[in-house]
């Protein structure tokens, strides 16, 4: 009989099957994918439940235990990301349904939206597979394969709109992603050369500050920072995210960068933290500070909504890096769980923002910030969703962003690292400025506002965005549950290193 442990395979197997089927049979690919997304979120819930009952689990694929075989593992960080992709996955699928049916109804675009929709579903399902595989994987080479799965499907999704600008961006993205994963693979080789194993758990037990580990971690981190679009290696992100179709922008900005960030997080905190010197963490923090300020300033200068949101992604990713030095020296073991908490809050908010931007673009035909006024009269839910998601970016209570920022500020002030605290605050002010640049346009209705026809399916576009925005807004209130997940998922060794 099927054992309960096998649920761990579901988040990989089900989207994969959906991808194959939706490529094979075109009719109903929407419903196949939607069903897969729902099963995926259910599986995530079951895994969380199992985790609370019996703690972190390891699963040997093919019955071969590591180091010979590949293991899948569930622990706090993996589960929180799994739940995140599960929830946002359903929302994105619903949104994409509305999005494509909206576009197909517009006769001017002969056949193109049909093509886009047809290929969107298999690519999106493969993306989901890759992400889930990455979160669950316990093997560094297997992670490489999932990274490539993510990278290629992301490039395919980015190119889907078919415009020259997005093709250029997709090609650049693909090359960057290739560079990133090659660096990662080089690191894998170094690790295998040093320890002769590929399993994360075994590596964690063996790792020490040897030259092989340092070299491996250095090249892996550079590759992953590149893939995560951390300043100053962010150049590829804004064009790729801003020129893609709206559901694709949401996937890229909300989930794909989080995938490689998650890996970075796992390597630095979970596996190799004993091997790393303090300066390395400070360097990460410095990159983060640069990202926050640069991304924020660039976001202020943009004239197009989607570009603004894309630059805000760069800025927000900086927060996640600033947490590195703080969690290392901060004395508070909660700081590092704040990182993932913040990352998931940001994912929900950013997806909601891109969804709203897409809805606005579908209705208006453009996304020039100065000409957005009046849209609220026809799309009130969208306008509100954008603003609510903005609250998370600004880090105001009770959003998930606030909880993260609170923990980081506590850590920086209690260890007298004033600089990080000032950068955090400056980033928040920049966020206020760039969020309200748009919100003030969305919230007023000038008397001469143009009339816009609302699509009958517009609800499918508006409500998923609102729900995700509200999740990100109210995440602070349910913080104990995800934090408990992270707390119990923390490996004892890490507590000792960071806490002591």
């Amino acid at each position, binding site marked *: 009989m099927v054992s309960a442990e096998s649920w761990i*395979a579901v988040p990989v197997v089900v989207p994969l099957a959906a991808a194959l089927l939706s*490529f*094979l049979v075109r009719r109903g690919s929407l419903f196949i994918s939607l069903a897969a997304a729902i099963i995926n979120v259910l599986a995530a819930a079951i895994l969380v439940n199992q985790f609370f009952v019996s703690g972190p689990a390891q699963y040997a*694929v093919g019955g071969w235990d590591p180091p010979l075989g590949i293991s899948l593992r569930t622990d706090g960080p993996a589960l929180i990301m799994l739940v995140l992709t599960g929830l946002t996955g359903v929302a994105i699928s619903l949104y994409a349904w509305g999005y494509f049916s909206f576009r197909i109804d517009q006769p001017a675009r*002969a056949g193109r939206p049909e093509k886009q929709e047809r290929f969107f579903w298999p*690519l999106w399902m493969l993306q989901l597979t890759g992400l889930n595989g990455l979160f669950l994987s316990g093997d560094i080479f297997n992670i490489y394969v999932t990274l490539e799965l993510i990278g*290629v499907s992301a490039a395919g999704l980015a190119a889907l709109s078919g415009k020259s600008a997005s093709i250029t961006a997709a090609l650049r993205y693909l090359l960057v992603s290739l560079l990133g994963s090659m660096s990662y693979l*080089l690191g894998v080789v170094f690790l295998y*050369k040093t320890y002769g194993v590929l399993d994360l758990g075994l590596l964690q037990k063996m790792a020490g500050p040897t030259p092989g580990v340092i070299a491996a971690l250095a090249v892996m981190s550079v590759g992953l920072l590149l893939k995560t679009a951390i300043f100053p290696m962010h150049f590829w992100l804004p064009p790729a995210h801003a020129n893609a179709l709206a559901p694709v922008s949401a996937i890229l900005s909300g989930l794909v960068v989080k995938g490689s960030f998650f890996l970075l997080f796992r390597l630095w905190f979970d596996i190799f933290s004993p091997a790393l010197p303090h300066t390395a963490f400070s360097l990460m923090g410095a990159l983060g500070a640069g990202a926050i300020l640069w991304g924020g300033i660039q976001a202020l200068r943009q004239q197009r909504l989607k570009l603004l949101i894309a630059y805000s992604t760069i800025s927000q990713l900086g927060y996640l890096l600033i947490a590195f030095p703080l969690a290392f020296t901060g004395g508070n073991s909660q700081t590092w769980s704040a990182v993932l908490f913040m990352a998931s809050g940001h994912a929900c908010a950013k997806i909601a923002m891109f969804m709203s931007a897409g809805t606005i673009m579908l209705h208006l035909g453009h996304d020039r910030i100065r000409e957005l006024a009046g849209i609220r009269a026809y799309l009130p839910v969208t306008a509100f969703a954008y603003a609510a998601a903005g609250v998370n970016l600004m880090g105001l209570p009770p959003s998930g962003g606030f909880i993260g920022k609170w923990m980081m500020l506590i850590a920086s002030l209690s260890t007298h690292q004033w600089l990080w605290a000032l950068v955090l605050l400056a980033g928040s002010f920049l966020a206020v400025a760039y969020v309200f640049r748009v919100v003030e346009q969305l919230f007023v209705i000038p008397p001469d506002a143009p009339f816009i026809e609302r699509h009958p399916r517009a609800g499918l576009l508006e409500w998923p965005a609102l729900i995700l925005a509200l999740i990100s807004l109210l995440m602070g209130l349910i913080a104990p549950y995800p934090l408990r997940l992270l707390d119990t998922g923390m490996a004892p060794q890490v507590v000792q290193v960071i806490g002591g």
Partner: protein
Amino acid sequence: MDSAMTIILTGFDLLLSATLLWLAWQLLRSTDIFKAIIFFICFGLLMAIAWVRMHAPDVALAEAAIGAGLTGPLFLAALRKMERKQKKERRFDPEEKRDNPDKRWQVRSREASPLMWIVAALTLCFAGLLIRTVWIIPRPLPGLAQQTAAHLGASGVDNAVTAVLLNFRGYDTMLEVMVLLLGAITIWSITHAPFPPRLPDTSPVQKSAVRLLLPLICLTGGYLVWQGAYQTGGAFQGGAVLSAALVLLLISDFLWLPDMHSLPLRMGMVLGPLVFLSMAVLGIITENALLRFPPEQAGAFLLFLEAACAISIGLSLAAFFAGGRPASDLREKPYQTDQPDTEKEGS
């Protein structure tokens, strides 16, 4: 070991390494892209020799078939498509682009750029650091050789590489097959195969040659798959050979991809991944673990798996070569980039 033999081998190693590096340098720095691609093909063939020297015949075969055999033609086909028809330009050459109004990839004078020198210096430092690290890492560990050997009996095949690939680390391979399919899906989503045909007229000699060769190639592919269980070979090598057959058919006008119906193609492409996935799930149901095969029947399972995968791999690789989906796949009229983008979005 005989000392004379050692000296010869060392000399061979040195020569091979030097040639590889020289070829790589040439292919990256030569002014003409066409030449660069030819260098790349040579590079791939020499790499295959290097793999043999490393006692990695499976990799050698894959490199020869995929690395040089398929990737090279892919580049050539891409280069050909990039050429402008109207002008006399034989091939797309960066040096010729200087006085071109299209500034997209205009080459800045290479020697003059200080940035280039900085990048070069940095990469050089990086190389130095890497080599130093390798130098100080202690002698490599045995790795997983013993573990693999110990469990080889239960894997269902005799070839250790195949055992690792399909059984011990079958999960990797499953995802990798998906990456291959993903590549094909992505290519289909980007464009469709060139239309109208760009190929020169095929001579009758070529046609009959292909007719003769075709069964032979298919046989070889099948044999490689079969042989994978015992010696060098396997689904990827076999699939690559199959794809060569398909490519031959394509370029000699036997099959014209735009005319082909898309459903059988899709079915063929999905077949391998689907079989792989079903077996994985079957493992959960019967053996209580994802991708676990019953040890007694593992051999048969793996053979079936490899055969299915080889077909899909062959089709996917051929799809790479064709460079797009068949035109019949579209209900819409052929995509025309000549028309300016009608969508306001993103402009």
